């Protein structure tokens, strides 16, 4: 695990869909730069060439400009190309192709509250215990129904662990206000809306320790609503799960 490098441009990228997003961001910025430099050069040229001076008069007749048509059509075509070739397919992949039939997929329930994240794993039986808002309590931050046997082996922790190269489905819920689940290195942002459970999926390509933040103003402690995000090898992840299980006293 190398220390990830952060700076004044895009942070490290370890997400399976992240290369597409970064490519789009880069292409759009080159496009923007080209337009901006073109416009600016034209403006500066005009300001010098057509400055007021003795003997110089403005031309009343509108010039026959063709390049503005080219520019407008060019912008429209470029935008359409970006939209059709990148934006729509990438977004469709991110939002709809959920890996539900992949037996490796790991499902995590993420519970947001002012001002912490909680990560709820189904445990050895692979089944989440029954949950509901009426069960939330200080000693039950995941809102588990203790009468449900499926929930006995459930793991609830404050930091997220996931194995590398494995599809993850995170089911996001919030107890109180709107939060937003943001992992910059995964190129993910997803609002967590009260009254809804919103699933997202992602897959990490390399291991490391990173941060999860809240991207939606959620009150006084909004700024410190962060959690650790650990991507580890499949073996390390299994070892971590086993340790958490023994901590529950179930082995």
């Amino acid at each position, binding site marked *: 695990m190398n220390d990830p490098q952060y700076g004044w441009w895009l942070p490290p990228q370890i997400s399976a869909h992240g290369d597409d997003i970064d490519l789009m961001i880069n292409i759009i910025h080159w496009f923007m730069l080209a337009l901006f430099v073109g416009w600016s050069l034209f403006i500066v040229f005009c300001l010098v060439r057509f400055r007021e001076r003795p003997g110089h008069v403005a031309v009343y007749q509108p010039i026959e*400009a063709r390049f503005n048509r080219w520019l407008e059509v060019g912008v429209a075509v470029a935008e359409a190309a970006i*939209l059709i070739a990148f934006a729509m397919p990438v977004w469709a992949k991110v939002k709809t192709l959920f890996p539900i039939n992949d037996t490796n997929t790991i499902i995590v329930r993420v519970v947001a509250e002012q001002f912490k994240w909680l990560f709820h794993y189904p445990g050895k039986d692979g089944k989440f215990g029954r949950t509901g808002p009426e069960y939330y309590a200080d000693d039950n931050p995941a809102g588990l129904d203790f009468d449900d046997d499926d929930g006995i082996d459930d793991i609830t922790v404050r930091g997220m662990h996931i194995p590398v190269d494995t599809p993850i489905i995170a089911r996001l819920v919030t107890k109180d206000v709107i939060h937003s689940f943001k992992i910059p290195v995964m190129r993910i*942002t997803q609002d967590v*809306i009260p009254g809804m459970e919103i699933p997202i999926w992602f897959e990490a390509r390399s291991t490391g320790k990173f941060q999860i933040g809240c991207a939606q103003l959620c009150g006084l402690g909004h700024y410190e609503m962060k959690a650790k995000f650990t991507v580890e090898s499949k073996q390390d992840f299994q070892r971590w799960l086993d340790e958490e299980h023994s901590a529950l006293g179930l082995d």
Partner: protein
Amino acid sequence: MSEAHAEMGFLRKYVFSTDHKIIGIQYGITALVFLFFGFCLMMMMRWQLAYPGEPIPLIGGLLGETRTDRGAMLPNFYNQLGAMHGTIMVFMGIVPLAVGAFGNYFVPLQIGAPDMAFPRLNMASYQAFVIGGVIMLVSFFLPGGAASSGWTSYAPLAVIATTGQTFWLFGMMFLIASSLLGGINFIVTIIHLRAEGLTFFRLPFFVWSQLVTAFLLVLAFPALQAASVMQLMDRLAGTSFFMPSGLVVGGEQIAAVGGGSPLLWQHLFWFLAHPEVYVLILPGMGIVAEVIAVNTRKPLWGYRPMVYSLLFLGFLSFGVWAHHMYMTGMGTTMSTFFQITTMIISIPSVIILTCLVISLWGASIRFPVPMLFALAFLPMFGIGGLTGLPLGLAAPDAFLHDTYYVIGHFHYVVAPGTIFALFAGIYHWWPKITGRQMNEALGKIHFWFSFLFMNGIFMPMMFEGMAGVSRRLFDPTIYVTGEAAHGLTIMTSWSAWGLALAQVPFIINFFWSMRKQEMAEDNPWQATTLEWATPTPPPHGNFPETVVAYSGPYEYSVPGAERDFSPQFIKQEA
């Protein structure tokens, strides 16, 4: 007319005035004060961001124990400042200055009308604006302070917030009422009170921009007015428009009936707030078009396409609001629709900007201070518009959403964009309003330093956003991304304080030129539009004789004409 415009006492003339010019000045001064106040709030935030946890110099000790701890800002106060900075700048600064002040003063003059169609409605609109503004300011002194849930006031956070939020909602109701009264007045005035001969396609572009803006105000604001009443009911009357069931806040079950949707608030809010973006920018474009036409000494290139683009912008601005909500979990069909409309709406903006740029070709360009601001508007608005592209597409937005990139983007549109346009307007029309010229040297100092520091503030923000730093964080350095980009944060903060200093020459110029500068002629820029046909400053009733428009708005450098400008109000010998 003459009876209605007889001499009046001080109160009737300056305080409870129905004269559109006095109301325009009232709006202008009030809005400038609010703008400055909103700017001060931001400067305090910039201290906390650059030097987190350190006592605020000079004023840290004066803010009180509920806001600061030993002079250092508390998160609660930071959130209040953030919410109120946004609210004040948008609803109490830019819109009243762009529409209330410039619109009020110059729309009747540019269409050759003696006043607005409904002078008393106009007065009521200003009064509602002041009441709304005062409610907002007073809320700082409530226990718990002002609203702190962002200028967007998303439910449920805003519903469970302290009393400041109730004041925010009441304040908004007055501000919205003010804009609605103003909007109706503008529409009727522009349609009914145009001078003889002033057909729609002889209207100055500024008047067009105000007409479209007025429609946006009238059609979009009722959604937020209704939403504000609903949120107020949720807070005070136990309804649950925006509150789902089963919320647990700080370990306590919330007693809301439930069944409401927090997303409903977002839809209603953004249904207003996206057209609002165009309310912020269109009058600015209008002013820039006027100033560029006058100082290039030639007709605007592509006047008609510009007008059509304006209408198209206004129409389409009602169909893009949900691009603020890609990250709420909307389905791909919905997001595809809003991505397409968002890409389409960029085209008319490109057309208007391109027409203004091509207008420079073949010109004879003068460089007085208003022209400098208008020229700077072009690339600055360009950056603001272009950086909207990655945000308008859902996939890049998945990374950029709620980062400083967003803040940089919309500030480029509104701050070096609209505010520069408003400065251009102030310098351009100052001689008409006051009868005096503004000092050129002070104006140039004001311009160059403002230009430098505006970019010093907002360019680092784009990079900060690219580095993944989230907005609305009381202390971004607790994240690795914020720590790595902290140099940019400091650069931004110092630029912000530099920008404050850069306004000093403007403030001096403002007061000094009112008294000391040389008197201005009636038409000092040799311009063509109708406002220059009035005596300077224009008397109550505006035009001593009825004006008639004989030609289009920008007849400059007409071949064969005696002078390089042929005003609309003078019949040309054929």
